[in-house]
């Protein structure tokens, strides 16, 4: 079992809901401090966005963050270098689009991630049908490949996806791109369907914008992923301390 799964299973066993905040690599000069702040605020793991020019499943906030980050020269390498120097108490999961790894080379990417201490990836445009080469590239190391289940995913596909997913299963709360929503959407239903199919930790994400929604989603899920709500604050000028407080608020809501 790769370390990401071990970690999250341990949280679940301990009765702790997992909280996975998302940050866009390179968005601000102090972006790494936000990652530390999130850990300090109670994150169970941190999702690191590697910016891509054409983020087709991201809403406007994360699009904007990605463009800003790209404009300041962020690359896969600069991100890994920045993270490789850090000591972080929780797992890191890279979120990006497949072309970044495809272009860098699959084995080279897997190695680079591992060297940087990143133990998982979420690649939303990498369907299970296309994932074999990437899974193989990651096979020998400790980089887990997380897959999403969507509200539209039919039962047969849920089985297939959870069979491939490592670390946890990402339960998409709604048919939508990343953003801030006012309900937990289909999260309970999707989580239930994933649970029927496997025993992996299941984290709900997409639109979980407030501590209250996180609390509600975590009634069924083993945890939540919170992206846009935090990135929005950073775009608006939030400091690492602000981030720590915001994450802590989510953590309290999950308690």
């Amino acid at each position, binding site marked *: 079992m790769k370390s990401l799964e071990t970690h999250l299973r341990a949280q679940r066993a301990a009765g702790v809901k997992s909280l996975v905040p998302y940050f866009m690599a390179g968005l601000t000069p102090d972006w790494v401090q936000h990652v530390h702040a999130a850990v300090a605020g109670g994150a169970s793991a941190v999702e690191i966005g590697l910016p*891509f*020019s*054409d*983020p*087709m*499943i991201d*809403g*406007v906030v994360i*699009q904007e963050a990605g*463009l800003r980050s*790209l404009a300041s020269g962020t*690359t*896969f390498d600069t991100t890994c270098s920045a993270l490789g120097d850090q000591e972080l108490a929780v797992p890191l999961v890279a979120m990006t*689009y*497949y*072309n*970044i790894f*495809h*272009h*860098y080379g699959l084995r080279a990417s897997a190695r680079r991630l591992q060297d940087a201490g990143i133990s998982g990836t979420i690649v*939303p*445009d*990498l*369907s*299970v*049908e*296309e994932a074999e080469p990437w899974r193989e590239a990651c096979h020998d190391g400790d980089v887990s490949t997380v*897959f*999403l*289940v*969507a*509200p*539209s*995913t*039919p039962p047969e*596909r849920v089985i297939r*996806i959870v069979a491939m997913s490592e670390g946890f299963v990402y339960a*998409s709360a709604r*048919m*939508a*791109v990343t953003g801030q929503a006012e309900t937990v959407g289909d999260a309970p239903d999707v989580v239930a369907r994933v649970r029927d199919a496997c025993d992996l930790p299941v984290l709900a994400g997409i639109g979980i914008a407030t501590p209250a929604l996180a609390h509600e989603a975590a009634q069924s899920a083993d945890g939540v992923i919170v992206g846009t709500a935090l990135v929005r604050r950073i775009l608006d000028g939030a400091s690492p301390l602000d981030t720590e407080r915001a994450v802590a608020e989510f953590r309290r809501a999950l308690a």
Partner: protein
Amino acid sequence: MAEQREFMTAPDEFGRFGDFGGRFVPEALMPACLELEEAFQDAWADPDFLAEYEGVLSEFAGRPTPVTFLQRLSESLGLRIYAKREDLAHTGSHKINNVVGQTLLTARMGKSRVIAETGAGQHGVATATAAARMGLECTVFMGEVDTKRQELNVFRMELLGATVVPVTSGSRTLKDAVNEALREWVSCVDTTHYCLGSVMGPHPFPWMVREMQSIIGREAARQLRDLRVGVPDYVVACVGGGSNAAGIFAGFANTGARLIGVEAAGGAAISHGTPGVLHGMRSHIIQDEFGQIEEAHSISAGLDYPGIGPEHAYLSAIGRATYVSVGDEPIIGALRTLSELEGIIPALESAHAVAWLIREAGREIPHGSSVLLNLSGRGDKDVAQVLSILRGAS
């Protein structure tokens, strides 16, 4: 017949043409892609559907389009050039073939709305047109930059009852319009079909759109037989996403004809791109050293796309088709030449194919060769731009 064909057959079960193609989309869209694949396969095997599709193309869209012998251009270049006249199809280009098929399929799938991306507006106008005829709701995504450059096409779509959404993300041009259409599709996939405009995107689009455009090649092959030209030495088409080229190549893939795709130098995914993954497909893509997609730049908006349909990447890889590129400089001259000699003002896209003929006649193309040229569209949409370029130059 399918058994005898070696080239341009169906892709494998994953939608791959060799190493290219596939289905790189968010899980939320996978069921829709699978549903579409099944619906398409089912419809395409249904004689009633095919009859309806061909009926609409002939009764509404003006098919078959003629093949015109370009006598004066032929004389001036020392070739025998036949033009397939997609410029005469309804809405002014081959784009209508595809949208007629996809809107019929939309209705067959029980969906009531289509969305589409568009660059200059040709595919958007075509989609709005077919949607109007079928009584489907229609939303077209168009880069904000393009909505300003092509104000009249925006208005044409609106006249046709479509809603045009200016896309303000990324570079605000065609590739961002595709992203935005995909984002929208995620949120309405139950009721809405994404009517993609070229042989690109995730499986089954590259295959389906090629099939829906292959009527160009089938007609042309029959017409050249009737004209006693038989199989031409060359089949030449411009390539943006690659749908008009795929459509005409399909009629000649299993003959001895040389297939030539002409890319715009500023959007030449095969000539200047490398393998990559974008918009749901693995294909040749123009990207920087970090795998970020680059903006294409061409005088013709319809060729302004950093990718190319995966089947073309495959045909290039196996050597069945050859892809060449032409810069912006000779395009206006080619447009003028065809206009003055033949009374046909081509679209700037199609003028790329003409420019290549002019450049290579007697060089790459031996004198006396017979050439089938796909005139993918008419130039009316481009006349204002050409005028301003010529004014700027003088």
